[in-house]
């Protein structure tokens, strides 16, 4: 029973961590973007205020059952994926279920939320939402190809499909997968540009032309809940990348408080550095059209991914 209690505590802790880190990162990016544009910018905790404000809106509107459920799908996907990836390698404080689900499961679970939200957006009946969904799904087919190629490369290189195992291997050998298979890493990095939907891949929710696309009919608590889900997802993607390619974080041999905090620090540094890649790329790029975005992913990133797979087979 103690075990179960610890697990529940760990799950809640993980969720809070993912949520907080994701929201803060979003806020920092807003601040940094402002600085780059020579503005003062909002405070880094602005996203929390936005969220709180949305949650305390006095009236809310839903367009029916699927519209009501849309944020639910996102949160389900976000929290489930969060609990099935390792936060710190072998740490007792985050005793989640990373052994019980592997990369294929994570891949499919990660689209669960977007599809559910797309259904909710569809029920609102706003044509902008449907157009946004069409673009989003098309773009997803684009960036999933290099992403899966890089994952396949990793899986066959180390003969494991578990994120936990991959982290452990990197911990034991001391060589990051980003170095042992650089092509796969690059392919995944390119794919992450599309995943985070910063420019130039932000046509899905283009505010000026699509009225923010799929979320155009959501406000109040629905938009707020979606925002939290999105924040958790940002943290998930970053953590997943760190554990897959950048050596992970945490020391399985030492799970004391100080070591845990140290591990968290390492995780935060790595994730933040990684997060800067799509953000930097976004600052200097205008927007792609959907087909341009898809073709972008199907050219160099896919080629890099294929090289990565070949590299993995012959290394």
């Amino acid at each position: 029973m103690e075990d179960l209690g610890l697990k529940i505590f760990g799950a809640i802790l993980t969720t809070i961590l993912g949520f907080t880190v994701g929201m803060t990162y979003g806020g920092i990016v807003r601040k940094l973007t402002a600085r780059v544009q020579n503005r003062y910018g909002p405070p880094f905790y602005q996203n929390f205020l936005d969220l709180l404000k949305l949650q305390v809106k006095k009236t809310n509107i839903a367009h029916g059952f699927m519209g009501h459920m849309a944020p639910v799908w996102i949160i389900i996907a976000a929290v489930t994926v969060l609990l099935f990836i390792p936060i710190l390698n072998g740490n007792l404080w985050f005793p989640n279920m990373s052994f019980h689900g592997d990369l294929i499961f994570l891949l499919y679970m990660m689209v669960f939320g977007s599809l559910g939200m797309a259904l909710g957006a569809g029920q609102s009946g706003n044509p902008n939402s449907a157009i946004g969904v069409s673009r989003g799904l098309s773009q997803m087919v684009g960036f999933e190809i290099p992403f899966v190629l890089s994952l396949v490369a990793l899986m066959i290189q180390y003969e494991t499909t578990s994120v936990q195992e991959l982290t452990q291997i990197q911990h034991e050998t001391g060589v990051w997968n980003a170095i042992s298979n650089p092509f796969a890493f690059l392919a995944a990095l390119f794919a992450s540009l599309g995943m985070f939907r910063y420019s130039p891949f932000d046509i899905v929710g283009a505010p000026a032309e699509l009225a923010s696309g799929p979320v155009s009919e959501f406000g109040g608590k629905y938009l707020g809940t979606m925002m939290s889900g999105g924040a958790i997802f940002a943290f998930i993607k970053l953590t997943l990348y760190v554990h897959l390619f950048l050596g992970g974080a945490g020391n399985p041999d030492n799970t004391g408080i100080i070591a845990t905090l140290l591990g968290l620090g390492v995780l935060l540094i790595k994730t933040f550095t990684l997060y800067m890649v799509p953000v930097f790329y976004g600052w200097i790029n205008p927007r792609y059209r959907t087909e341009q975005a898809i073709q972008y992913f199907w050219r160099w990133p896919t080629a890099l991914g294929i090289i990565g797979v070949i590299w993995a087979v012959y290394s």
Partner: protein
Amino acid sequence: MNIFFLIILIFFSGAILSFIINRIAPKFSGITTFVTIAVVSFLFFTQVEINSITQFSLGGIQMQFGVNNYTYIFAILVLGLSLLASLFSIKYMQDNDRLGYFYSNFILSIAGMVGIIFSRDFISFFIFWEIMTWSSYLIVIYDGARSSRSGLKYMIFSAIGAYAMLTAIVSIKGSYGTFIISEAIENGAFNFTDHIYIPIMLLVGFAVKAALMPLHVWAPNAYSKSPMSFTAIFSGAMSKMGILGMGLVLASVYSHSTDENAFNVLILRQILGWLGGITAVMATIYALIQTDAKKLLAYSSVAQLGYIIVGLSTGTKLGVMAALFLAIIHAVFKGALFMVAGAVERQVGTTDMTKISGLIRKMPFTFFTALVSIIALAGIPPLGGFVGKWMLYEALITESNNYFLVIVIFFSSTAAFMYSYRFLFGLFLGQEEKEIEHVKEAPVTMIIPMVILALILIVTGVYPGILFEPIAQGMQYLGYSDVNWDMSVLVNVWGEESNMAYINLTIGVVFVVIFIFLTLKNLKGTRYVGTKDISTSGEIPTENENLTFQLDFFKPFQRAAAPLYKRSMDKIWNDLGNALEAIFDFTRRIYTGNGQTYALFVIIFLVILLIFKNTLFTN
């Protein structure tokens, strides 16, 4: 009387009975069908013993009837789906005429499938195969002139398959001296060793039914043109007969082949696997440009069969298990989806997605079925579709070294999200238009089978072990020993697992928490509005204004993937057909009707004979 004969007899008498009853009281024709199938199902699951064999001889040929663990999987699938489809059919077909024709063929095709399952020798196998083919052909052309072209296509390809199969069967008799399937397998008839064309011919025969590229072109039209209550079986169960045969052939190749890297095994794995993969991709990208929901589902069926064939082609334990699991799950969700399309067609009058939208409030149960089935189709956790997809990927990555096939399959299954969404959005979501205001939920007898199928999908997602047990036993028959299965844990050969229990628990808990939070939070301040109350820059949409975005839904994707759309198998076959026609036309010109020309031909023939006399008649 022997139980097998009894079942076949009940089927045939049921077919005749429903034909006769239609003359007297057309209403009861459907009910007769349902009762017939129900009686057979009851008899089958209570009386038939697995691995019991009945021998008899017909015209001097030894024949065997029986059910083994492998065919038992398909028996569950066929009988279960047919039972629900016939129940669905009663109301769905109510207002049509020529019901006797439809129902007797309906029963006959099921009789054909059950017969195939019973057959343990090639002769009866072939006979029942033809019964199935012919009766399904007759149903495809049920609609008359509108569907005669698709019926013709179906018939031509079926004929190709049938001749290929017949050639193989005769060759087996000639080379190995037996018609009994198990004996042929033991003699190594399918092993690509001495008579390499035998398994190839058989595979061609089965591939036609399983809609494998390049023999799939009949499928989209035939699936979408026949009545939906039959298509549920046509796509759900009948295509699985092809899978049944392919499984037999491939399993005997892989499990009897001592060398894992033998040349023939690798060749087979590559060719069949890639054919399956390409089928999946091409069918998927064609599915997502369809505007007719039935056509979309038909293409999607072809794509899903592609996955199953890929799974079979790996020949590994996990791969075959994935294929069989996917076969059952596909039957369930595609049966459900075609029923959904049928229900929409009956209630609205069309399945054109550009004309329908916003049925969710009108047909909530149908929507529930569609949602669950689509989640299973897309392979999203936690439903059964995910379990099958998971095993398929793990098999390809861990066991078959066919890494790029993984990408092809993954591309196809990601693109499948697009048409999945399209289907749900096109029919059920979007603006509630005025034209469909009168639409009501389908009658209860149509709802029940759909909802049952949806519930099966949910249960198999949570406890995939329910299906693993018969599959594991069936695979032992195919020669795979020690098939491990657990109620809810999926394991690959590297030891990694996906634990459906944990996954479902997490999803369930989070769902409940968030759902309660979101619903109760500010309950008073939350109100539901219609789909006309949307932010349209302040403009008020009029009642007849259609705001739903339906036409060219995936135009950006089409532009991006334009090279893939350039080549269509249909076109290649048409070109081939035209070329053949030209050749035949030329051949026909030999017969001019002029006696002197014929005389000239005879003289030319004699001259040729004389010239080549020495080479032709050496001894």
